[in-house]
């Protein structure tokens, strides 16, 4: 007898977690699409968001979802600054250079956080941190649902930005054909800085959304999030935002189902295995167009 309730429970948990993964992944894929940069520090921006929320909570008692309003713009400017100061110097370097430089950036961010906040895991305990509510026989964690809603709102905002504004048009043009975009007068360097800023604020938003649920550790979790973000973007196809969302949901579901039906010891491994399979068999992602075969 197949346990439908339990399956639906797992599926909905997977989708909710997947929504947050999608938020993490979308930022990375956006940056790659425009700048062709593989940002290793992406996960550390997520952790930065987590610590930002912790800070605002301990200093002012702000609820994390309130902190989003401040955290995202601040992250945007930090991202722009980093792009201007560091990444813009890599214009003519081979692709692995951006990987190495952002790896260095990840180490710098992670360790500054470590030196500032110490190594003990930190979290934010809101009154609703462990609450759940039920739809029929399925119980859903309030946090995950809130995070899911936040993800929808933010991605919705991103969609509007990309498809209904001048800036969005410029971003899409730069992503598709950089030379063409420059020829029609788009300042691609400015676009790059803006996009990196957006990517940073998306990552920070994900961190803020997750802090009531998870603990922040300064260096370890950064790498984990980055890895998850890569899995999501490769699943969807680097540069393809809609697909990244699908990739995130897929990752969430694969992890939860794998943990429930096979074994939870290898929870993180399921996503990695799928990631490897996609890299090897279909590097353009499950939905993507860019091919990187030798």
């Amino acid at each position, binding site marked *: 007898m197949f346990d439908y309730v339990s399956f639906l429970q797992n599926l909905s948990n997977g989708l909710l977690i997947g929504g947050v993964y999608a938020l993490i992944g979308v930022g990375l894929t956006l940056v790659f699409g425009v700048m062709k940069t593989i940002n290793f520090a992406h996960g550390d921006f997520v952790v930065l968001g987590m610590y930002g929320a912790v800070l605002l909570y301990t200093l002012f008692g702000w609820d994390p979802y309130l902190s989003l309003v401040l955290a995202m713009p601040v992250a945007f400017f930090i991202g722009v600054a980093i792009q201007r100061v560091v990444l813009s110097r890599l214009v003519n370097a081979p692709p*692995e250079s951006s990987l190495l430089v952002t790896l260095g950036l990840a180490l710098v961010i992670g360790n500054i956080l470590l030196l500032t906040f110490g190594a003990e895991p930190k979290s934010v305990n809101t009154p609703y941190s462990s609450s759940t509510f039920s739809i029929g026989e399925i119980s859903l964690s309030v946090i995950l649902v809130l995070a899911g809603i936040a993800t929808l709102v933010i991605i919705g905002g991103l969609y509007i930005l990309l498809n209904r504004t001048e800036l969005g048009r410029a971003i899409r043009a730069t992503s598709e054909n950089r030379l063409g975009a420059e020829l029609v007068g788009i300042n691609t360097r400015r676009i790059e800085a803006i996009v990196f800023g957006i990517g940073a604020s998306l990552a920070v938003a994900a961190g803020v959304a997750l802090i009531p649920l998870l603990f922040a550790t300064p260096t370890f979790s950064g790498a984990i999030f980055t890895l998850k973000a890569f899995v999501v973007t490769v699943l969807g196809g680097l540069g393809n935002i809609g697909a990244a969302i699908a990739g995130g949901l897929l990752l969430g579901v694969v992890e939860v189902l794998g943990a429930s039906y096979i074994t939870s010891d290898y929870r993180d491994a399921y996503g990695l295995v799928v990631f490897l399979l996609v890299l090897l068999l279909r590097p353009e992602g499950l939905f993507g167009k860019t091919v990187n075969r030798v």
Partner: protein
Amino acid sequence: MNKHMIALLCIVIAGAFYPLLFPGYLSIAITLLLFVGWATAWDILGGWAGQVSLGHASFVGLGGYFVAVGATHHGLDPWWTIAMGMASAAALAFAWGKLTFKLTGPYFTLSTIAIAEIIRLISINEGWLTGGATGVFIFSLPEPFGVDLFARETNFYLALAFAALCIFTVISISRSKFGYQLRAVREDESSAMASGINPATIKLKAFMISAGLTALGGGIYAIFLSFLEPHFIFFLLLSVQIALTAIIGGRGTIWGPAAGAVLIIGSGEVFRTTFAEANMLIYGLLIMLVVIFMPRGIIGEPVRYLIRRTYAKRAQS
């Protein structure tokens, strides 16, 4: 004998006196020598063959665990288990490489992280193989010719021999047909193919040699620590440290990775922390500076400049 070999010999001879002169500073020297060896071995794949791996800690762990588990659970002598560890590292590299070498640049690197992570998760969960998350102690080792393998001095000489072997390997490669083939494949695969070279074979060979040597260091490391736990030894951080050490020093050069190790471990000592926060912060800053301003590394850039200047002068005379 060429100048690099002579330099190596001198360094080894000088090094032999180190424990007599600085008996209190052996641990740091052992760590330094291990990193010299690991970075140099990594560079065979990462610098000479041009494939950046961020998963080499897997090979360290493999070597280490063969020795530790072999000694504690099966009573095997370390020389056998180190050899077994090296052989299985080479075998793992073969399978790993065959699977992933068709991926270009950054994609290959991403795949190494994923595979290394999977290996780490396996080592944490499969206790029957590795003693699980709690780790393995090495309680006792045989005493060949009455030598105490746990003694710091012995560890030092083992590490010195390891580092010397790695550098010796790279020096030999640099003068051989294999070395030229490696550089050709790294520079331009199509051009290499047009010269009759099969890039996949070359890269596989490099990977296997790199993995085997790294595992050797892992075995020595296990004896040095006399305790292993998977979270630490298989972790991404160690892979990153090894890779960055080689890159900062200079990929594809003979002494670059060693110089990188001296620089980083040395500066870590200055800050009085070895694998801790400030050290990693420095790694991060250095790699960013090096990749942006000195992509051939601290040794590589001056070497290249000198070569071109020497030729330019000669062309004028």
